[in-house]
């Protein structure tokens, strides 16, 4: 099975987390740590790029739930991009598209952050 990897990149006013592999109950703490580091650094504009994410379970989705309120209280957001159909399906079944903005491409999420900053 594929391992799970979290990689962080910082753009202009936006932090991007790249996910790769299987996000399950065993690997979810890795993502939790990544979010926690961003919050500690007061980085609240977060994009999670799921291009190489092969699998997600409720434990992985729970990590997004655990941080979103703190992020939004600080006028930031977590936006999701580049999901495969099978990963999107899990998000969709649990009603996550009404809770999070999900974009096809990372660039669209960056643009959205930029628009929100202006307004």
């Amino acid at each position, binding site marked *: 099975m594929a391992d799970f990897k979290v990689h962080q990149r910082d753009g202009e006013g936006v932090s991007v987390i790249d996910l790769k592999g299987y996000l399950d109950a*065993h690997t979810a703490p890795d993502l939790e740590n990544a979010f926690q580091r961003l919050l500690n650094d007061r980085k609240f504009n977060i994009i999670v790029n799921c291009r190489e994410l092969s699998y997600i379970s409720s434990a992985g989705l729970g990590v997004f*739930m655990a941080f979103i309120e703190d992020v939004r209280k600080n006028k930031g957001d977590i936006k999701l991009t580049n999901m495969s159909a099978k990963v999107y399906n899990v998000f969709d079944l649990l009603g996550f598209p009404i*809770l999070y903005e999900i974009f096809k491409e990372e660039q669209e999420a960056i643009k959205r952050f930029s628009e929100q900053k202006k307004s």
Partner: protein
Amino acid sequence: MLSTGLKTAARSVPTRSSKLFGANAFNAAGSSPKPEFSMQEKFKRDLKSLSRVFRFIDSFFSKHHLDSSKKQEVLLAVEELFTNVLKYQAKSAKGITIGLRKGNGEVTIRMIIPDTEAFDFTKAKDPDVDLPIELRRPGGLGIYLTKRMVDRIEFSYRNRTTTITLTKTIGASDA
């Protein structure tokens, strides 16, 4: 002995109401005799076992040349149940046995969990996935996902042992 079956709402029809069937209805669903579990393995009650569980299911799907999208759904259903046991039935150190078989156009997954309290999760109330974030409460999402990943679930409890049988229909070309 407590025994129930749940015909799930299936992923393609994500309604939130599921119809309950008795265990006999489950058994009568296939007219042909069911083959034995061709693969069976015992796993420690530990999160670290998850990757081994995944490899076990992966090797079954590879061996039988089955549709990998169905594999993802089986992995998800099994992970959610496995982690549920770790969360709510953590007192025992006894391992969880998972058996897999293919036959009659279906993949059947059987989990035998010894030394458990009785909890028939098929009767658990589904979470409201249309609620806004501030009204959502933790819990219930994993079981909800399991119900949507497979076609039938049978639960039985006897002598402190829980047996969960999941059935996933596979395509005709895979059968």
